[in-house]
């Protein structure tokens, strides 16, 4: 730590934050690793909240004509479950991986715009808190002219129009009260967070790669981050505009989606899914990236067909913008549109298939270490294939008109987003655990977690295929006893509780291993990419000197060559190399200037919810608070240098003086 130089104090309205430990060091941090960790914990918290909401839904559906939740509560719970899992759990947990790993994988010291990165995080937190404040302040009720038998509880005072917010049901007439405004404005705020980080990551990948890190030498996870960033950058503006329209319709009496004013409710569907389908790939591509790192490492083989996997990822991202109407096959679209979007949906199966076959090619003939991250990665392939195949049955438009809006769809996308995205994410959490914490996780508990999760997952979501085909529609608060759906619903509910136990095992393992886990060596997996060539936990400066990259999987090739059969052979001197790397990694021999912490991203971010409240409650004082926070944040940020001048810097003649200033 001695080599890090204390910045001089700032001469601004606020003195510059300088603590390196404690809560303020985290709140003001601009370090991509700390931001990544905070993203991870916040997203996991929301994952638990979304999971609790799911358990409430499952208790309600465990038997026919149940009365555990009221209709209003049920509708609020499924809306918040979907919204939470997508925008507050899976997306930010992917952002946690991007933040932590991206600079490490390309050999950079940080992302291109560290304070912008902090801004993304704090806007995400501000948006999430804003959305959830609906449980305190929001109101909901029966449509205009309708009657309710009981008072609307706090649990039901949340958005209730579905995460897809179909108009006009989510409009003011049919969803009165403020809850849907919390939803529309909350998503708007969260969208800003994602947009900001998308541009940050694109810039980082294009500009901050270390020497020799050509594009086609980048790890696949970095490639997928790149693809996701483009998806975010192109798809979020669409939903931003659509959400503005909704807010205008609800608050200012416009009629973008209201038939009585010449608007069109189907337009909302087009705009929503034009964003919503790329969003699906925003959720799944990070997991594709993670398993593309895990599988080769534990197979001790390179990724099979690296260029194909990279291009397939971008193919999926590109075609993903041309399939949106497959969410609307039963809606008001023409047979020509049905045929077109059916075909484009089939086409997207091709690059997806290429990825799956290439992953199989990767493990084929390998030497597989079946530890927890590998099990999750293998489980990912198995479960994702099921979700992919049921996805193909949706591209068959006539069949989809039977399946759409039923539990068959619920089964399908949970196989993709839970069996796919979340299994991939767990694989990554275990895989990089030693790098982040410098300790090993507990392997036995990890394996228990995997098997409980695999079983619980299939018991929960497998029977949903059957329930959907047997006619159970989505978003159904109750189902009639005569539909004979009770038995399998009960099984599904039992499965959901197995999943809850699995999550508890994961948390126990995490808490235990963080404190008591074995000390991790810096390369515990004999891994391939350069983030494993630095000490664990990652030093604050990442790389003590910028690495030079000579090939794909550079770190592996430093350790291994190939004999005449093409088998991996450990190079002579590898042990010495590893010792040297660790020694160097801990003791940088040059001065390292790290971006200084800042209050301003936090201040700027927390201006936004005030503007949101101001719109909902038409309040000028709240708007003023919001604008003032934005101005302080923006102005302070603008006048504050990224790095403080350093006391011992020779180019700075004021250095001595400034130290006395303290």
């Amino acid at each position, binding site marked *: 730590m001695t080599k890090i130089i204390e910045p001089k104090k700032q001469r601004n309205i606020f003195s510059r934050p300088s603590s390196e430990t404690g809560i303020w060091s985290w709140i003001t941090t601009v370090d991509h690793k700390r931001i990544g960790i905070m993203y991870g914990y916040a997203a996991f918290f929301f994952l638990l909240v979304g999971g609790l909401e799911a358990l409430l839904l499952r208790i309600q559906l465990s038997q026919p004509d149940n009365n555990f939740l009221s*209709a209003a509560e049920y509708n609020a719970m499924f809306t918040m479950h979907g919204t939470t899992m997508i925008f507050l759990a899976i997306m930010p947990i992917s952002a946690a991986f991007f933040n932590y790993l991206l600079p490490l994988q390309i050999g950079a010291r940080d992302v291109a715009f560290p304070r912008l990165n902090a801004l993304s995080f704090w806007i995400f937190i501000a948006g999430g808190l804003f959305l959830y404040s609906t449980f305190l302040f929001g109101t909901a009720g*029966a449509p205009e002219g*309708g*009657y*309710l*038998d009981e008072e609307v509880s706090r649990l039901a005072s949340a958005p209730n129009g579905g995460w897809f917010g*179909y108009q*006009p*049901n989510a409009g003011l007439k*049919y969803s009165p009260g403020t809850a849907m405004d919390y939803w529309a404005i909350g998503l708007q705020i969260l969208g800003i967070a994602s947009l900001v980080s998308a541009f940050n990551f694109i810039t980082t990948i294009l500009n901050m790669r270390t020497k020799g890190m050509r594009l086609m030498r980048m790890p696949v996870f970095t490639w997928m981050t790149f693809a996701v960033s483009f998806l975010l950058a192109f798809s979020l503006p669409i939903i931003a505009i659509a959400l503005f329209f909704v807010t205008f319709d609800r608050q200012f009496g416009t009629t973008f989606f209201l038939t009585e004013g010449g608007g*069109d*409710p*189907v337009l909302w569907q087009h705009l929503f899914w034009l964003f919503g389908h790329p969003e699906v790939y925003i959720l799944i591509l990070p997991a594709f990236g993670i398993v593309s790192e895990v599988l080769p490492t534990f*197979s*001790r*083989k*390179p990724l099979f*067909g690296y260029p*194909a996997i990279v291009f397939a990822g971008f193919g999926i991202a590109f075609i993903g913008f041309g399939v949106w109407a497959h969410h609307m096959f*039963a809606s008001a679209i023409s*047979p020509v549109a*049905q045929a077109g979007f*059916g075909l484009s949906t*089939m086409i997207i199966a*091709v690059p997806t*298939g*290429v990825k799956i*076959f*290439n992953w199989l*090619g990767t*493990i*084929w*003939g*390998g*030497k*597989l270490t079946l530890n927890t991250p590998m099990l999750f990665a293998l489980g990912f*392939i198995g479960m994702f*294939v*099921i979700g992919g195949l*049921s996805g*193909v*049955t949706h*591209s*068959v*438009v*006539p*069949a*989809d*008109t*039977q399946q759409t*809006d*039923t539990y068959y769809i619920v089964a399908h996308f949970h196989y993709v987003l839970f069996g796919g995205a979340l299994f991939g994410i767990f694989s990554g959490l275990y895989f990089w655990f030693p790098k982040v914490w410098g300790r090993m996780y507990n392997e036995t508990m990890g394996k228990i977690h995997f098997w409980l999760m695999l079983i619980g997952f299939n018991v929960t979501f497998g029977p949903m295929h059957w329930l959907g085909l047997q*006619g159970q529609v989505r*978003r*159904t*608060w*109750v*189902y*009639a006893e005569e539909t*004979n759906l009770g038995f399998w619903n009960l099984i599904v509910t039992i499965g959901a509780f197995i999943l809850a136990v699995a999550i508890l095992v994961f948390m126990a393992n995490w808490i235990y291993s963080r404190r008591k886990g074995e000390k991790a060596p810096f390369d515990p997996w004999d891994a391939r990419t350069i983030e494993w060539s630095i000490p664990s936990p990652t030093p604050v400066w990442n790389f003590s000197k910028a690495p030079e990259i000579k090939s794909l999987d550079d770190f592996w090739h430093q350790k291994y060559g190939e004999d005449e059969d093409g088998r991996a052979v450990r190079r002579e001197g590898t042990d010495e190399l590893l010792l040297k790397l660790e020694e160097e990694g801990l003791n940088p021999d040059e001065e390292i200037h790290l971006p200084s912490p800042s209050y301003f991203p936090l201040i700027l971010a927390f201006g936004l919810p005030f503007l949101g409240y101001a719109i909902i409650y038409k309040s000028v004082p709240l708007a003023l608070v919001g604008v003032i926070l934005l101005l302080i944040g923006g102005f302070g940020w603008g006048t504050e240098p990224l790095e403080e001048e350093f006391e011992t810097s020779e180019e700075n003649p004021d250095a001595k003086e400034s130290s006395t200033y303290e």
Partner: protein
Amino acid sequence: MQIKKFLKTRHLMLCSFLFITACIENAPLDSLSPAGPYARTIDDLFWLTFWIAVVIFFIVQGALLFSVFYFKDSPDKPEPKQIHGNNFLEILWTIIPVIILASIAVPTVRTIFDLAREPEDALKIEVIGHQWWFEYKYPDFAITTANVLVIPEDTPIRLEMWSNDVLHNYWVPKLNGKRYLVPGQKTYLNLHADNAEEFWAQCGEYCGLSHSKMRGRVLSLSQSDFDSWVMNQQKNAANDLDQNSLAYEGQQVYLNAGCTQCHVIDGVWDVQGEQIAPNLTHFGIRNVFAGAALKNNPENLTKWLANPAQIKPGTFMPNLELTEREIEALIEYLGTLK
């Protein structure tokens, strides 16, 4: 034909495939028990896709499990060969899926256009979605009814549909797929039932508080039964009840308690303007009410009339604070509306 026969056993096979021990055959909303040509076309297409998917499923999962067991690390295992890819294989597994998908795409596109075509000599019926019930109008016969769609067997039906409020989605799983009901524009759906039978319908699209209770029935009748049903529907309700009967008392409740704000009974009372509640003229012969959420019997009617919002949260039918006597009379009267 052999293959057809093989596919007939598919229900059983699917059951065993999904490890289903308590396999339910009598689910009234089962989309896998087609009872008409439209649903059957869809069903055939689904099973074609399903079996292709099953084959791919076993190939991929087989390769995965084989790799896990066969290539598992063991102490004496040598380091693996470092294979970076194989162009031939990669092209192969790009092209084969394209061919498989093309074999699904051709019948898919054909079926899309077949299902969308208006059948010749179809009976036209209008379906209007309301929160939370379906209204049916027969323009050829000047009939308005609700909750139970009555159709002649073995006759193509053309539904012309729209919504009066939010999006709804009309679904009779055994007769065809779903189609949205959209405010401000018309959508179309064909039905065709092989036999005289009762089917269940359900709103598919989330449409607010009581979405799950927006249900329906489709009653397919023989042509002669259908004709007499039509004759009966075209009659007005009787307006000459015995003034000492309970039914007459019930009619007075209907006329005075507030029901006439929304409910029409032809020959007794007409509501001006937009219809927001079911036409009750022939309420007594419908076997379900309240958006088909309840069976039509005195017990259910008592619960409903005492507090509609308890049965269907958000309903537009107010609690009229009727006395027990008034409810009893009203039920008696509704029972006479055959």
